[in-house]
């Protein structure tokens, strides 16, 4: 059997230089009996670029952090059959654990098959679920199977999927629409991008099953514009599926017809909210509508519509193939199946992690992602993006399911999991999120438009050392009112990062307000830079780097910083090789 060399070409891989690796491999493999191909993202982003080498016997030799100059080594190994020669770039056992400890359903094909080839998808049981549904099941049976599975919306709200499908099916009207929300806007979440880039047919198959169950003849995928590669791959996959009869008129020879269109978003976080998304699909400003009516009654073009996000759709074909009960066997009482998390931030091993519900946060952050890097200390994990919250170390044993996470004040959300160490200021992170929501607020309702702006301003004065006694209470009062009064989910959840950081890190707020200190030493306005006379060697490196000339001294004698001139940029601290620049 011919050896196969597969380069991981998801966005992360490409950003890490996968294209150059591919080109180098193509050159070096010229004349070698080997097949060079691509795959999507396996999720171990920290190891990119990843090259999977399958030898003649089909055994996998995974190479990581591959550089173009390693192409010769790989070509040599393939030619000689001496795969031990790959040792320098081979994946290490602890990194293998990152993948082996996961349970992959939504991501099962990601980084395994070629996303640009329908044949590879078909070879891995692709479109069998659709065939089963169309030829052997009634729409009601499909909905029942989904109900048994316990699948809930993976976009954030966690609403039972079968219920939405059923509501849309029951709604009166001939024309109904199916919508895939691929406007993955939460900063820190990228599983939907990975699914579309790495396994687009799985999304198409899931959507067609849903379309059949609900009775839709038209489906739309709303993809954010920042994901150009996803749009290219999905466009190609739709074309292939149409050619093979999995999309379009009389699918698989049945009476069922449905087609998919792609609509590219244009950059607005609020369009992740389903009614804003519908407004945007209709070519309007993405401002949320009043609910009710819910989309299931009157959505796209005011017709019954069903909206699910990418990850939700990616579970559907598996559930049909394996049965709802198999899915429901995983997870906890109130949360079934698996969930994909994008683990990023200060962890040793960052990337996509799919695990069964019921594992703890500690299992994921320390067990799979390897804990905190650079020998620092864990401080908090942010879950659910701008709508979520920060969970402290004392709650790391919280079980991952919808209810338990909500009880902490955070939310499951779309699965962004940003891990922070002791160098992250918790007031600063709250301000970061409020800056984000202020910028992304559509501006329609007062509580969100002005409320988030004012929350951000109050936080800004706290991190600038101008916080006043009573500011925390003012924040809480405003947060609670914005939650109650805002029109849509964006505004209603925007205060969560503030409320959870106050709840778990009140001492940091107090330190900023009362002592004018930032315990994480992250807020520039509250820092004082000085030079330790005993450690300073007088090398003048810091003085050369200082952008405002605040550092003076004579060579080979200790230098000093003029606090009046210092702009607290930290350049000296980053430059000093002797650890002589102190920050307080």
């Amino acid at each position, binding site marked *: 059997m011919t050896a196969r060399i597969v380069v991981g070409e998801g966005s992360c891989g490409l950003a890490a230089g996968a294209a150059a690796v591919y080109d180098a491999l193509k050159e070096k493999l010229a004349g070698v009996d080997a097949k060079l191909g691509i795959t999507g993202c396996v999720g171990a982003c920290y190891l990119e670029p990843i090259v999977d080498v399958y030898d003649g016997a089909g055994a996998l030799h995974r190479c990581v952090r591959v550089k173009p100059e390693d192409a010769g080594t790989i070509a040599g190994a393939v030619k000689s059959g001496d795969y031990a020669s790959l040792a320098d770039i081979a994946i290490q056992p602890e990194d293998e654990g990152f993948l082996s400890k996961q349970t992959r359903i939504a991501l099962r094909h990601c980084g395994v098959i070629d996303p640009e080839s329908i044949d590879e998808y078909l070879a891995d049981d692709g479109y069998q679920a659709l065939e089963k549904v169309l030829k052997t099941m009634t729409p009601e049976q499909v909905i029942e199977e989904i109900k048994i599975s316990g699948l809930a919306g993976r976009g954030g709200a966690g609403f039972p999927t079968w219920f939405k499908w059923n509501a849309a099916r029951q709604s009166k009207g001939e024309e109904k629409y199916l919508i895939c929300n691929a406007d993955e806007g939460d900063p820190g979440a990228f599983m939907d991008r990975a699914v579309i880039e790495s396994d687009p047919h799985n999304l198409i198959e899931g959507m067609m099953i849903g379309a059949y169950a609900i009775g839709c003849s038209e489906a739309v995928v709303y993809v954010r514009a920042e994901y150009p590669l996803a749009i290219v791959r999905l466009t190609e996959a739709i074309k292939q599926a149409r050619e093979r009869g999995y999309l379009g008129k009389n699918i698989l020879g049945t009476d069922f017809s449905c087609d998919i269109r792609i609509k590219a978003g244009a950059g607005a976080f609020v369009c992740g909210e389903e009614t804003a998304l519908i407004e945007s699909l209709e070519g309007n400003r993405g401002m949320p509508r*009043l609910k009710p009516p819910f989309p299931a009654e009157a959505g796209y073009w005011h017709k019954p519509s069903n909206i699910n996000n990418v990850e939700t759709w990616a579970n559907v074909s598996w559930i049909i193939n394996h049965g709802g009960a198999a899915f429901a066997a995983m997870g906890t009482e109130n949360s079934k199946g698996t969930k994909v998390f994008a683990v990023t931030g200060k962890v040793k091993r960052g990337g996509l992690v799919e695990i069964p519900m019921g594992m703890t946060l500690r299992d994921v952050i320390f067990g799979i992602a390897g804990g905190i890097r650079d020998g620092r200390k864990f401080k908090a994990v942010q879950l659910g993006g701008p709508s979520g919250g920060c969970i402290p170390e004392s709650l790391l044993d919280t079980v991952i399911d919808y209810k338990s996470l909500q009880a902490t004040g955070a939310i499951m959300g779309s699965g962004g999991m940003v891990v922070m160490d002791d160098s992250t200021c918790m007031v600063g992170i709250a301000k970061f999120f409020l800056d984000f929501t202020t910028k992304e607020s559509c*501006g*329609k309702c*007062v509580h969100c438009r*002005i*409320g988030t702006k*004012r929350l951000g301003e109050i936080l800004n004065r706290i991190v600038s050392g101008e916080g006043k006694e009573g500011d925390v209470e003012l924040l809480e009062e405003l947060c609670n009112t914005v939650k*109650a009064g805002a029109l849509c989910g964006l505004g209603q959840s925007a205060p969560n990062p503030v409320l959870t950081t106050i709840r778990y890190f009140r001492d940091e707020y107090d330190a900023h307000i009362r002592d004018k200190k930032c315990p994480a030493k992250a807020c520039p306005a509250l820092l004082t830079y000085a030079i330790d006379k005993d450690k300073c060697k007088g090398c003048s490196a810091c003085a050369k780097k200082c952008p405002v000339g605040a550092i003076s001294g004579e060579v080979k004698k200790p230098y000093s910083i003029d606090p009046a001139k210092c702009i607290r940029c930290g350049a000296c601290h980053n430059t000093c090789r002797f650890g002589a620049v102190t920050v307080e």
Partner: protein
Amino acid sequence: MNDIKLTINGKTCSGKAGQTILEIARANGIDIPTLCHDDSVAHYGACGICVVEAEGSPKLLRSCSTLAADGMVINTEGERAVQARKIALELLMSDHDGDCKGPCRLACPAGTNCQAYVKQVALGNTKEAVRIVKERLPLPASIGYVCPHPCEKECRRGLVEEPISIAMIKRFMSVDQLHSADRWKPERAPATGKTVGVIGGGPAGLTAAYYLALKGHDVTLTDAMPQMGGMLRYGIPQYRLPKDVVDAEIAEIAEAGVKMENNVKIGKDISFADYRAKFDAVIVAIGAWSSTPLHCPGEEQQGVYGGIDFLRSVALHDPLPIGRNVAIVGGGNTAMDACRTAVRLGAENVYVIYRRTQSEMPANAEEIEEATEEGVQFKFLTNPAEIIGENGHVTAVKLQVMELGEPDASGRRSPVPVEGKFVTLAVDSVIAAIGQKVDPKGFDLALNKRGIIAADEATFLTDQEGVFAVGDATNKGAGIAIAAIGEASKAADVADSWLKGHIVPYHEPFVSKRTVTAADLADKEKKARVKVTNRPAEERKHDFEPVNDGFSAAEAMEEAKRCLECGCHDYGECSLIKHANRYEIHPERFAGEKRHKDLEQKLAVIERDQGKCILCGLCVRTCDEVAGQGLLGLVGRGFGTVIKPEFRDSERIKVCATCKKCAEACPTGALKIIG
């Protein structure tokens, strides 16, 4: 449609299925505030003011768009709903860049609507102008002559070149109307059967009596002097305020139904208790008629007078003897009145002794200037140390020389004696115009620490049931006439509510204020203030005729046209300010960046002020849904969103010129029809 029943605020309300909570509430007489809802356009849900609580629902519901269901239990004024509503209003106001009232009106202690009457003068309508000023001030002509016009100090035109001559305009329009056969006359409410006694016929007493009479009460104004007018008549010299003007305005007050009795002094002619017993309510407005003594040796001698005592003697045509050389002590307007009166009585050398310098003088600059022109000699940085006399009569005053020290609490540099340095001035009389005191003898009312009648700041009530006190005789003591008038008009409202059985204390309403600098007004065309020419000093110092003739009609109109019209045209109609005051908001706690205040655009006959826009979208939606034009759009996103017109088609602008529906829909003063 099926009938449904729901409970709103404990009241059973019926409606039809398909109606919103708001519709049913309104049909049942329950007012739920809203800013962005209008029946003529689709539901929008932006403002969040109309939120209500529904039993069993953890969420607040937007009543404008939530359909009512049978059996719903709604609370429109629950704590959570009110909190959300209040904070929404506070947030809107924290981003609101507009002046509800012009700075002139805010600066006027009586709250007279300067901008509105100035506007009417600009339009040549003095009758309407007088009607407007008389909403808060029944003596506009007298006050027009004498007021030190704090309004002009705040006038924003002052940031361009010079403030509007508001007082002079008021004097013109009021005098113009005073003798007009067609002058405006107030309507009097039907008789209430309640009686009110007002003690003191000065500005405060006249004002309280006037407004209470107009409210239908039977009012008797009682005064110890032979004629009404108080300090206007007995404290202000004729050359500053002709007494026929005072007479005419008092006559109008009498015409409005106030009964007047003079030469009745409480405690002498009738006891306060007996007086009180005659009326349902009493207003005490007795003023401050005693001069503050100098507290220096020798002041008991003949030829030492109090400033207001001196002025009163002149008003009563029996001037106190002052001789040829007169020293007036003090730097306020009473000192100026006294020195200029002394000049007019023929004194050869009139000195003003003031312990600080000219720049610290509280008197109006014009007064100081005119006194100087008339030959008054100022002795700054001196203070009487001893009054020297012979045979019990003043012959000289020994002055301690002063210098300015450190600034005191008021920011003024306080004078300190230069040790051992004195000068002596030969004088025949000394007039002490350094302050006035209240004489509360015979009133049996609780006094404050300074011996002044104590009255509640919000109700004006004294310690006696049904006895109110206002003006110079209360709390802070003597001030300017317009301040006493302001108190009196507010007290009239409170006393009226008390007489009707439910007292409503005075509450300063919340108003939105704009911060404006000279740079903001840099594009305004400069137009000099219209000057009034005074009669030559040499001529006027020999008589008691007015110093000038005031504005002609043309001058008044020209001057009035300089007004920048800072106050909002929509103040009376604005839903935002109405709700803001209903919920007693404090937007200052959310003070922060305001959005694009400089964006002002014109659209045909509509002036757009983005600073006042609350982004309710009613104009945009009305233009789309009602007018079918689509000329307005929301531009941008989030906090920075603005509403802008966008079209090139000149036919469309003609539509705007006649349509105006957007401006009519605007709940605030952001859109103003100018044509």
